[in-house]
């Protein structure tokens, strides 16, 4: 069943450029949406029926290399594909009915291909399928981003991540001679270059997920539409990083650096995202920072070996998307106002949106608290605290703070249309009735959120919105430029001048030219003057004889 959906998605995504035309663009995107909804319905129906169909196709068979493609319809795969599918449907709905996109059909086509790539990734059971699907997700991400600057940054980070993964998998295959993920345990026992493998793997997934200090690529996505941003944040490369790590978990134990590295990056990301999220004025960037906190938390749980990916990751994807939508709803309701400092006192006009936002936060708290155990308690509490503070600060600024919106925004303020909130409501209902139990602590967290929303302790940070040095400057880009790119450029230029120009062109080739010219000149002089040439030739003969007798002894 999953294979059928995968093939339909792939075919539709590839055929789209052929049928898409400007005049019929809306009709095509609507038809695509219907196809996606039908596929989603089919998917849910099969899952509910408990369909369990293993599907493995032998992709390549030559010499001693065997590569399979696994797209089995088994419960673990269903569970993780479901949130990806649900988010994709929601995003497609917004793309088709919303006004943010010029070409909704292109976005829906990219969503189709992205979903297919994620399906392939989730079902992977060998290194090649993992690498192919991860790179496929990278390529679809490339097409999902329609801003050049953001796309170029994303491409460079992803290139590094994919090459890192490629190298890790190549080292493993070179050592084990086997591509199955189930064989990774053998590498744990007698693997080579263990530290390199573990460190490179972690750096690659951090790059994919945009963890600190590689978050620039995701922050840079503020130039694309909010809907695209949400899709990339929750069902594209950042998620693929987590899935890849979860599939290669045995590799973490091959090096003693793995766990500290995971935890250090998780802490740094969480703290940085929290701090930057409070200060930053751009609503899209703020949403990105919130997402990063959640990803950092997920990585922290992975480091504790306390994360059932197939089960809890699904909830986190849905809950994370819901929270992104909290920011998105305010953005849409305020006629695409980008700066939070130009909002305030929206509650009067956006009561329904505010309630939805509160519900989204409460459900998020529930997801975090339901998985809290003594082992992960510090991390869970940290995330909860940060989420409450972060959320409260935003809700206060948008709904309760001083009215800073300009007249146009204030006049056009209205709750988002049905295609925005309806899928969110469906996701909320789903999370509300899911098998996780409700705890009293969820109510405490919700109450804390409300309390801090009314009395925002960070309200003084609002004045930082005016500081361009904080809001617009990209210090990380400058650091990378200074520490990484500039030395490469200088080194390259020195090599170019020194080796190509001075050594080869000016020394070797010029010497050859000069040597040849000298020989030619000497030969012509020998021909020109009989006496002089006779003397020289006699001397040369004499020298040759002396050398000959000297060598012979």
């Amino acid at each position, binding site marked *: 069943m999953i294979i059928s959906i995968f093939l339909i998605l792939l075919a539709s995504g590839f055929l789209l450029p052929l049928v898409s035309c400007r005049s019929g663009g809306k009709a095509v995107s609507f038809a695509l949406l219907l196809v996606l909804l039908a596929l989603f319905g089919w998917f849910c129906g099969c899952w509910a029926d408990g369909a369990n169909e293993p599907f493995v196709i032998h992709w390549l068979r030559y010499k001693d290399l065997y590569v399979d493609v696994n797209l089995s319809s088994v419960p673990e795969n269903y569970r993780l594909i479901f949130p990806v599918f649900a988010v994709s449907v929601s995003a497609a709905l917004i793309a088709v009915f919303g006004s943010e996109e010029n070409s909704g059909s292109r976005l829906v086509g990219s969503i189709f291909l992205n979903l297919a790539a994620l399906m392939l990734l989730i079902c992977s059971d060998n290194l090649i399928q993992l690498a192919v699907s991860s790179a*496929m997700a990278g*390529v679809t991400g490339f097409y999902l981003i329609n801003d050049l600057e953001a796309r170029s940054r994303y491409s*460079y980070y992803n290139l590094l991540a994919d090459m890192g993964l490629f190298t890790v998998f*190549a*080292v493993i295959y070179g050592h084990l001679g086997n591509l199955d993920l189930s064989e990774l345990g053998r590498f744990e026992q007698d693997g080579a*270059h263990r530290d390199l493998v573990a460190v490179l793997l972690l750096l690659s997934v951090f790059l994919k997920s945009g963890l600190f200090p590689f978050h620039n690529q995701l922050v840079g996505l503020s130039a694309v539409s909010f809907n695209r941003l949400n899709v990339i944040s929750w069902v594209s490369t950042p998620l693929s990083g987590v899935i890849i790590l979860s599939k290669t978990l045995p590799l973490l134990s091959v090096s003693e650096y793995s766990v500290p590295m995971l935890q250090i990056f998780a802490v740094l990301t969480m703290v940085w995202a929290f701090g930057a999220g409070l200060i930053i004025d751009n609503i899209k960037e703020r949403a990105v920072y919130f997402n990063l906190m959640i990803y950092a938390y997920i990585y922290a749980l992975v480091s504790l070996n306390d994360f059932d990916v197939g089960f809890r990751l699904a909830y986190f994807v849905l809950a994370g998307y819901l929270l992104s939508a909290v920011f998105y709803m305010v953005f849409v309701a305020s006629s695409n106002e980008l700066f939070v400092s130009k909002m305030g006192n929206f509650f009067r006009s956006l009561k329904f949106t505010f309630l939805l936002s509160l519900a989204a936060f409460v459900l998020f708290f529930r997801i975090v608290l339901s998985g809290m155990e003594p082992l992960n308690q510090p991390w869970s509490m940290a995330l909860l605290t940060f989420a409450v503070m972060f959320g409260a600060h935003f809700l206060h600024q948008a709904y309760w703070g001083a009215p800073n919106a300009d007249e146009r925004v204030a006049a056009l303020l209205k709750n988002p249309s049905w295609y925005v909130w309806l899928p969110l409501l469906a996701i909320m209902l789903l999370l509300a009735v899911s098998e996780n139990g409700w705890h009293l602590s969820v109510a405490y967290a919700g109450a804390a959120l409300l309390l801090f929303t009314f009395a925002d302790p960070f309200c003084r940070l609002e004045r930082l919105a005016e500081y361009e040095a904080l809001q617009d400057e990209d210090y990380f880009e400058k650091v990378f430029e200074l520490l990484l790119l500039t030395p*490469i450029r200088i080194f390259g230029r020195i*090599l170019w001048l020194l080796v190509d120009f001075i050594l080869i062109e000016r020394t070797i080739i010029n010497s050859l030219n000069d040597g040849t010219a000298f020989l030619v000149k000497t030969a012509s002089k020998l021909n020109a003057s009989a006496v002089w040439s006779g003397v020289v030739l006699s001397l040369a003969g004499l020298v040759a004889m002396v050398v000959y007798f000297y060598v012979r002894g």
Partner: protein
Amino acid sequence: MLNTFSILSLIIAIPFMGMLFALTAREDENASTRNIYNVSLFAVIANIVMIWRIFMLIDVYKPGFQLIETFNWMDAPDINITFGVDVFSLLMILAIHIAFVIGFLGVRNNLVRQKSLMVLSLLFLSMVTGFFVAADIFSFYIFFEGMLLPLFMLMGMFGEIRRQGLIHRFLLYNMLGAVLFFVATVFLFNYQGGAVKLDSLRQIELNSTVEYFIWGAIFVSLLSRIPVWPFHYWISSINSHIKNPLIFIISSIIPLTGIYGFVRFLPKHLPDDLAVYVMILQIVCVVTMLFIALIGFINKDRQYKMFAYITIYYIMYLLGVLTRVDVVLLNIAFSFFSYLIIVSALEVIASYLYKQQESLGVSDDGILCAVPGISFVYSFLVLAGIGMPLSSLFLNNFLILSNLLAENIKMGMIVVCSLVLVSATLLQELFRLKDRSRLCPAATAALDLDKAGLAFMAFVCFVLIMSFVKPLWFVLGA
């Protein structure tokens, strides 16, 4: 029913006959020039059909030469010309032919010495096909050197600025290679008492006195064709001055002949004495890779960036060949197939953009924004070229790298770094061409490829994707 006995000779003869036709046609009228072009294109496409037929006739998984054809050349000394193919050589021939078709698309509106261009290109194609079907050392040598003649003339006619100096350099290195190779061939002929078959060459055992000389001479002559330091300089000098896409593609095929030589000549079991030199060669290779990748990254010249990309991949393939693992050799062939197509298509598009830029008198920054069709194809080719899963480069590079990393992790890591740098170089160029903020208003008048051109490029993309799905997808039952 086709007589399989002569089919290999036929694929050498078809471009040669096309060349003869072009040679006898007049060039003074437009219609004739167009006719020359059409017949040349037809000859290449007809040959592609023949090559496809050969794929059907051979067992693609069987090692060693198949469809052997032998022609007696001389009785005293007893020299035969022997042809034969295996999946490696046949894939190379097919890729080169497809690259030629792509190159022909790039020169279809060329008005400068079109006849000479077609004649010499077809002659080169005939020679290079002969080189890949050669199954004994004499045939190999004849075609190895034979392809230099049309190449030399093409460089002289279309090599653009500083061509005299470049041609001298080109001649110098290749003559050196030719002489060394010839001496080694004669030596082997005498040593073995007859012409040596290429598939038995790797198993040949020589005494230590001669093996230094034989392998040394052969490898230096092969290396002179590959952009390994210090030979990279003449190739880079030539490549960065060629503006004609077909000539660029032809000059980019030259290193392939060197790599192919290594595939055929490198002994299966290296004598200990030679192993040291192979290690030195590997060191030179990885240093060259990093060196060229760095220079390509900082260089602003489009052609040099392209050269850097081509070089890095060629050297990676050479390193793969030096591992002497059969499965790696097969993957190199699969990877080469996509690589040649990608390089050719990128060069044709780049040259088309250059012409547009020249005719409009503007910078080419952001020019892709004005030509959406080309922009899509160019993006696709760059993504495929940097090893995304859009062509057979992806999987096959993985296998080559896994062997390199398994053999020597440091060497493998340098190769990976070079690949990253050169991929960043290609992306850099792509984003420069797509940068709308730098697009000159006059550049918006740039023309997109016509429908036929775009359809052909879409077909090229399709071929690449299919090569990813299954490298031998076009061989029924493979």
